């Protein structure tokens, strides 16, 4: 799984490379675009994902020490709910609002004179990167569902819990991507008065 995560680092890395290049070349536009995003939702989502990483780690630990399948399933389900909450917050409070405000390039873009072309570029990055991340979250939710079913069928024990551990690595990786996306997308140029 670590080798697979290495490929994911390069996969997201391609977009991060592009982001670094464009941010350096078009900083004012990126700052303007970043200020269209609402920090409290980004920060809340960060918190939600960190909680889900904790619950995932606890789920694996429960298997390691031989707790009952009920305990493992409890933690897995909690992780699942937190992941789903992340996506729900994104969809309902961020993306839906962006859709109404005309901030989604290619789908609903009400480009007034206030939006320089560079802002459109920033919003492209925002949606591509968070969209790809959300796609990975959805896959993660699918994996968690499979794990719950496997646990219910007594597949894991103190000696064998490898799928849980491997899926945990994937889940934590997706969390780490968001840990970087949050400051790089929401906090560009700071949010102090005059920025």
């Amino acid at each position: 799984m670590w080798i697979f995560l290495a490929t994911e680092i390069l996969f997201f890395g391609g977009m991060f490379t592009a982001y670094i290049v464009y941010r350096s070349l078009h900083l004012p536009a990126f700052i303007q675009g970043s200020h269209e995003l609402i920090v409290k939702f980004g920060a809340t989502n960060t918190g939600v994902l960190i909680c889900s990483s904790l619950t995932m780690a606890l789920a694996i630990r429960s298997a390691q020490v031989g707790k009952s399948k009920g305990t493992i399933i409890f933690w897995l389900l909690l992780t699942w709910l937190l992941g789903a909450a992340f996506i729900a917050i994104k969809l309902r409070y961020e993306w839906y609002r962006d859709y109404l405000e005309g901030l989604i390039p290619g789908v609903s873009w009400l480009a007034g004179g206030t939006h320089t072309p560079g802002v459109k570029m920033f919003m492209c990055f925002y949606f591509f990167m968070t969209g790809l991340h959300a796609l990975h979250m959805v896959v993660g939710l699918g994996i968690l569902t499979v794990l719950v079913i496997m646990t219910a069928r007594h597949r894991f024990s103190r000696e064998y819990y490898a799928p849980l551990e491997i899926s945990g690595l994937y889940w934590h990786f997706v969390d780490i991507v968001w840990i970087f996306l949050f400051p790089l997308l929401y906090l560009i140029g700071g949010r102090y008065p005059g920025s």
Partner: protein
Amino acid sequence: MAEHAGQHARDYHQPHIVPVMTYVAVFLALMVFTLLTTWIAYIDLGKWNTVVALIIAVCKMLLVVLFFMHVKYATGLTRIIIIGAFFWLGIMITLTGADEFTRHWEILPQGWTSGMHIARTLF
């Protein structure tokens, strides 16, 4: 899926069971860092805003990698894979940047010889 290879790995070292309090401590640290980075964004540090935000993000990543992903207790091979992947990403960013950030450099508008010392010592 990875039972076979996983079995091999476990034969080499016993899995280290992390205490619950460690996980909780890491979790609290991560939350504190999140609040910190959000709070700092509202303070004017000029260009340091970005640097501080990235430093905090790297710290958070290290916490997740070392403790939640158990890399603190993992083999050297695992660490090489992780470091290797980031190093390769670094190559991609650096060399792409070598092009993108130097486009505007001017190429010796005056030519090679004007205004420069011609070598006098030939041997």
